[in-house]
């Protein structure tokens, strides 16, 4: 038999002035199952809570209903009080007599009647409450960081410095990402590599970081605190332990004319190569698609010159399994190529280049050692046209968003050009200048005022080549849309920032969500900007949306602190409001018919499949099982299950129907 206690609060005048609290308590006392009902001026005060505690002990209550304010206000208070008195916290419910009754209705008999109704409903519900216990899940305190750009580097270092092991996986032969390719960075114009390289070295030397370069994520299974990741370590063709990074092989390799990815195809590299001199690790890889030995069976020059005999031509990919408790995705972005622009020549004109290529031209470590020379003939361009929003904000080309950083880097490029070619004439075609950030507007003004970069408001319609010049046809919309034609020596397109080509596939592999542009979707744009919907997976950097380095680093530290927060406990404790599939203990039986409608509905992928076997191990049927570590308790599955096999603890079908009946 249930033994329910009801406690009605006056909240001073707040409830008491409109609702006859004593009458409510009296009516409650007459409800079946209620063995104790009182009213009191301030229930949440210490004496108020003591009333409840004493009643639990003395009347051996099996459930408590507090008729007071909104449960959003004091449910934790009263649940704690119950627990202190030895009653399971989840056997306490609140009836909202203040926000939903006394404050919104007149002092009329109906109002007190409504208050009685609200209490009755909760009494019926609480009779069906079951003791629940917070869910504890153990945590593997190792983090996986995917992507070794500045975002991944920052996150890995923050987590490692907090004392937790980190597995950092980078697809390319070196970490560094796009930041390693940049010349100088806005708004301070400090040298990108100078600030990045020390951090790369720190990663390599950090005792808590295990670095896998030239590696990719093969699969990810499990849930928050308990993931299992398989990493594919692609065959480098050398033994990393033996190689000293002397570079003799690279110097001797006869296959030299391969466009260098690091130099955005403006320079060349060999078949055995490190992407750039400051690479971490500074150990080469063999590009098998281009290597003469792999293509023809002859060469092995590199092996002959290697002083340590480090080459391993028959090396195979290695699969490594790691157990991790959290994942940070930091896989970055890609820029659109010039072939994306039909009206600008489909990438046919050598002197129409991307912003990223300009970075390489301006970089001291680039193919021209920092001199601005155009690709076609190596001449110093006298007139350079920069085109902003190239591909961004262009729904006709399928990209409607603003890439956010190009206004800034275009101003930077024009400035760097002017600093290097004093008599040069830089023009920028733009639509809007978006320079919201600390010292950003000032930076753009400097480009215009001090370096006399001519900004022209208008979009370029077409570029064609004539007599060695690139004819750029635009207008100035600030001059009555007058046609402006500029004969340029070099054109730089601020091409759009887009996700990595495999962003979608990676997201699907990890079961995380992405938006229509294939950028990863954070859990909430304002309040959970570094978490993914899937618990235990976090996001940092340009893989989530276009962003610059300061924002990337801030987000990476945010993601890292979430991971560190998660790792600060040994177990995860969660509210037990989770779904369960019904089960009668042995022999295991469930009414679940295995339709897996729940699986399709669950926004968190919390539904797993479980085989029910007989004693001989034969599969009887496959039923749903809720992973309680993942379930967030939304109840969508419950509404969908036709056989009523899945239920939500705390809001069970039985409880909710009882509420309805009591109305």
């Amino acid at each position: 038999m249930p033994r329910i206690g009801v406690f009605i609060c006056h909240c001073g005048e707040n409830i008491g002035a409109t609702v006859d609290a004593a009458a409510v308590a009296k009516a409650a006392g007459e409800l079946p199952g209620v063995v104790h009902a009182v009213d009191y001026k301030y229930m949440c005060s210490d004496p108020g809570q003591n009333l409840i505690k004493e009643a639990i002990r003395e009347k051996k209550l099996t459930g408590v209903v507090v008729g007071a304010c909104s449960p959003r206000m004091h449910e934790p208070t009263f649940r704690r009080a119950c627990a202190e008195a030895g009653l399971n916290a989840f056997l306490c419910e609140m009836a909202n007599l203040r926000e939903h009754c006394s404050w919104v209705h007149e002092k009329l008999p109906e109002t007190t009647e409504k208050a009685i109704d609200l209490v009755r409903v909760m009494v019926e519900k609480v009779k069906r409450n079951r003791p629940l216990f917070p869910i504890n899940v153990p945590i593997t305190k190792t983090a996986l960081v995917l992507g070794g750009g500045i975002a991944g580097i920052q996150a890995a270092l923050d987590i490692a410095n907090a004392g937790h092991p980190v597995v950092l996986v980078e697809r390319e032969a070196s970490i560094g990402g796009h930041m390693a390719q940049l010349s100088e960075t806005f708004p301070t114009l400090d040298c990108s590599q100078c600030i990045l390289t020390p951090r790369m070295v720190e990663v390599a030397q950090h005792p808590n970081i295990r670095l896998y370069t030239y590696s990719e994520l093969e699969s990810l299974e499990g849930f928050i605190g308990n993931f299992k990741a398989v990493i594919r370590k692609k065959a480098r063709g050398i033994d990393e332990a033996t190689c000293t990074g002397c570079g003799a092989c690279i110097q001797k390799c006869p296959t030299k004319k391969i466009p260098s990815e690091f130099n955005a195809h403006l320079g060349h590299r060999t078949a055995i190569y490190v992407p750039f001199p400051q690479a971490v690790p500074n150990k080469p890889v063999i590009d098998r698609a281009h290597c003469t030995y792999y293509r023809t069976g002859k060469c092995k020059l590199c092996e002959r010159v290697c002083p340590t005999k480090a080459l391993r031509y028959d090396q195979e990919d290695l699969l490594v399994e790691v157990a991790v408790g959290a994942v940070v995705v930091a896989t970055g972005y890609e820029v659109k190529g010039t072939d994306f622009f039909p009206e600008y020549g489909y990438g046919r004109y050598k002197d129409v280049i991307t912003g990223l290529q300009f970075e390489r031209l301006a970089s001291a470590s680039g193919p021209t050692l920092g001199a601005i020379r155009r690709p076609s003939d190596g001449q110093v361009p006298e007139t350079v046209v920069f085109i902003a929003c190239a591909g961004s904000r262009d729904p006709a080309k399928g990209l409607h968003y603003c890439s956010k950083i190009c206004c800034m880097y275009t101003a930077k490029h024009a400035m760097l050009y002017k600093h290097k070619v004093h008599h040069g004439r830089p023009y920028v075609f733009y639509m809007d200048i978006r320079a919201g950030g600390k010292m950003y507007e000032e930076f753009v003004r400097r480009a215009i005022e001090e370096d006399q970069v001519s900004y022209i408001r208008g979009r370029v319609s077409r570029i064609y080549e004539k007599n060695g010049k690139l004819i750029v046809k635009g207008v100035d919309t600030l001059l009555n849309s007058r046609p402006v034609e500029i004969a340029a020596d070099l054109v730089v397109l601020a091409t759009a920032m887009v996700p990595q080509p495999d962003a979608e596939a990676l997201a699907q592999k990890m079961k995380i969500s992405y938006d229509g542009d294939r950028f990863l979707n954070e859990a909430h744009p304002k309040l959970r900007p570094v978490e993914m919907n899937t618990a235990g997976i976090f996001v940092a950097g340009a893989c989530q949306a276009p962003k610059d380095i300061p924002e990337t680093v801030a987000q990476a530290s945010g993601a890292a602190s979430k991971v560190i927060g998660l790792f600060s406990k040994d177990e995860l404790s969660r509210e037990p409001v989770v779904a369960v599939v019904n089960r009668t203990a042995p022999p295991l039986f469930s009414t679940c018919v295995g339709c897996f409608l729940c699986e399709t509905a669950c926004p968190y992928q919390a539904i797993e499949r479980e085989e029910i076997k007989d004693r001989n191990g034969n599969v009887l049927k496959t039923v749903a099982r809720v992973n309680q570590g993942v379930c967030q308790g939304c109840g969508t599955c419950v509404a969908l299950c036709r056989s009523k096999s899945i239920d939500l603890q705390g809001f069970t079908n039985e409880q909710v129907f009882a509420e309805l009946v009591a109305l």
Partner: protein
Amino acid sequence: MKLGYFPGCSLESSAREYNESLQAVAPLLDLELCEVPDWNCCGATAAHSLNHKLALALPARTLALAERAGFDELLVPCSACYSRLAATRRDLLANEALRQEITSIIELDYVGSTKVVSVVDVLGRAAPTIRAKASVPFLRKVACYYGCYLTRPASLTTCARPEDPQEMEAIVASAGATPLDWAFKIDCCGAALSVSRTATVAELAGRIVADAAERGAEALVVACPLCHTNLDLRRPAIERHRGVSYALPVLYITQLVGLALGLSERALGLHRHHVPVRFAPGAAAPAAAPKEN
């Protein structure tokens, strides 16, 4: 192969030689052209500038007649007409209510079964035949001019790269010519303003002729009577406007193909041009050209 044929108004008069050369070339490429019985004018820019319904109804009548005659494809050599007919077909197929309204205006049923194709589409398919039969390869540098309607709008063009189309280039190359890379192949020549604003045309067409000439073209190649009028017939206005004279003939692509196939200048109507079709002595002079290979 049998094709429905819609010459359009100008091929009956000012662009006779386009018609003549097309008719002359067709049999050599195994094309049988069957004129649509009782076709009418497409209404051109005038109709869609003044009356939206008429701009659909006029082309629709011809399309319906072609459909009734059972053609799979309707060849429309004038690219302006091509654009009007193809756009009408597109619009009527996309909008059932409109289709019904227009069929009742034209008193003919129309379901859109006949595809509209251009000369460039058809010659493009015949390129291997042209290559095989080119007895007098046209060994000259040419600038292929597409104008507006072969490459725009995106919903109608059959060019794979509308900002830098290569389809005409492939055809002239199969006839032995060397197509040039130049800047104005898809720029507008002034089309329908030819009569009402000749000065405008002199400026627009002038830029086209000038760029082709400056890049060393020996001929301009077109596939549209309007383009031809503006680049050939309006040449005096162009030359007055720019103060330069250009000895750059303008050939219909069918004429160029015809020359390569060994047809006579007269059969191809070259004598009807305003700018004389004469070439500096070179690798090959048309018609009289010695057999090269």
